[in-house]
């Protein structure tokens, strides 16, 4: 596995500060590969990220459609493999209304499973060996990590300008 780059990590206490810093950092080419950390999903950060709609929706859609096809397909295939003519009611396509339930449930099931998969794949999870830069990022602090920068660099100056309460070096590992 390739080494993870070192860099500088800025810690912020306030949401508005980190959003302002984020917007500035995103415009700078010397901050490529930066990461923003947040304890929860503030919409201000999501808006500042400006990443467009998440591709998770394509996972959901493909899963849901696969589920619909599987549900109806399963029911019809069973019918044509061995028709169960109960109460004089014909099997197969004639019974389609009854199979709406199966089709519906599998739509939800496959859609849900694919949504989770999409979230994991897009979020690069699971990755239990990932380094934790600061334990406070799952508590009450925000952070911005800029790779390949030093404490006296131009990037550090920008981060500090927007009210970082702390900036420190992260070694490559």
């Amino acid at each position, binding site marked *: 596995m390739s080494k993870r780059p070192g860099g500088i990590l800025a810690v912020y*206490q*306030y*949401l*508005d*500060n980190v959003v302002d810093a*984020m917007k500035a950092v995103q415009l700078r080419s010397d901050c490529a590969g930066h*990461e*923003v*950390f*947040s*304890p*929860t*999903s*503030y919409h201000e*950060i*999501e808006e500042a*990220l400006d990443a467009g709609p*998440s591709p*998770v*929706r394509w996972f*959901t859609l493909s899963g*849901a459609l696969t589920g619909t096809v599987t*549900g109806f397909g*399963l029911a019809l295939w*069973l*019918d044509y493999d*061995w028709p*169960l003519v109960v109460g004089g009611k014909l099997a197969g396509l004639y019974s389609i209304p*009854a*199979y709406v*339930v*199966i089709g519906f*449930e*599998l739509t*939800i*099931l496959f*859609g*849900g499973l694919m*949504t*989770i998969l*999409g*979230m*994991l794949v*897009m*979020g*690069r*999870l*699971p*990755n*239990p*060996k*990932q380094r*934790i*830069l600061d*334990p*406070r*990022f*799952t*508590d*009450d602090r925000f952070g911005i990590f800029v790779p390949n920068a030093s404490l006296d660099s131009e990037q550090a100056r920008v981060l500090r300008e927007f009210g970082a309460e702390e900036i420190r070096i992260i070694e490559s590992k």
Partner: protein
Amino acid sequence: MSEAVKWNRTISDVNDGILANLGKPHPTYYLAWAGAIIFLLIGAITWGLEITYGMGITGKTSPVYWGVLITDFVFWVGIGHAGTLISAILFLFRAKWRNTVNRSAEAMTVFAVITAGLFPLIHVGRLWVAMYWIPPLPNTNNVWSNLRSPLAWDLFAISTYLTISLLFWYMGLVPDLASIRDRVKGVRRFIYGIMCFGWRGTAKQWHHYEAGYGFLAALATPLVLSVHSIVSWDFAMSIQPGWHTTIFPPYFVAGAILSGCAMVYTLLVPVRKMFRMEEFIRPEHLEACIKLTLLTSTIVFYAYGIEFFVAWYSGNVYEWGIFEKRAIGPYAFYFWVMVFCNCIFPMIWWSKRMRNNIAVSMFVAILVNVGMWFERYNIIVSSLAEDFLPGSWGHFQPSLGDICLSIGSFGWFMFWFLIFCRFFPIVSMSELKLIMPKPLSKKHH
């Protein structure tokens, strides 16, 4: 309404407040746990006896072959519904108060559905061959199960419901498990680190997480409405008087949410004391839960009324016969307990003072739970006991075995729920932070 909540805490207090009590519950917790184990043992021993000696130890008798066990099944599936309502539907409605109670409500859903899932197995007796009766599995006769049967639909519905509720609940847990990982050391850190998938909380992860969460909520919403509709079709698709009605799906869904909200309240009140969560699960949030219970109680009240009206207005003697007997016949006791517990007692919640009186509300919430169990019993037993042919009528009485198995289900449910409370944050920390004041710098004040 939660906008009116005056938080005297900030987001910095959330992790400390919630995780500090994770490992140190109030002593009553252990008492509750011991009670759960005893109940569970009673149920397990009875199930063992049932498998050894046969179905005779349950009260099932001709013509009532769906008795207390199916009542328990419907009851527990219904309990689960409030969890999904709170976590998914209220999420889509942006009802902020749900962020404080959704975690425990979702856990309740997962464990209630697991409990419900046991009952068809207990009910069939020879559970080791049950796999061949409903799921479409290849068998030696080359005959598939009949997917036009509501029982087969139910299998698909319940298993989908369990899977989706479990995923939704776990997905919500991931950021909180990362919070625990970042606070503990050694083996626990490693275990929580695996369980949270290595969550780091980057803006990109949150972006995809939020999208996924929204889609899961959007999928879970029609799912929760469909599941109890499908459970109701187990009855409504037959021609049994008292069952064969089109009102059943919405009537069952409303009843499920009524019992579920009452159960959420019944669980939250002691759990918030045991784990000292009073500062986060505020009286305003409990009151919101009561309002939902009151709303669904009025829907159920209306459904009972309209069901009676239609039975009379239809002019169908069999249908009306069942309803008349429910009210004044051999099962009248169950019927009136149901009416009083589900429709009459909850009406005290129109008073704000009563809604905010935790002792009174807790008592009424328990009564609603009792009433909803009686509702299912009433529907199932009275209709089966007396159908079209007076010559085949019979009478059903729950046996000691039935009662022990029902008690066991409460033990099984509480066993899992209490374990959950001990090792996982019972309030969703990342979502709670969202409804608290945002951490803004001075220039915004």
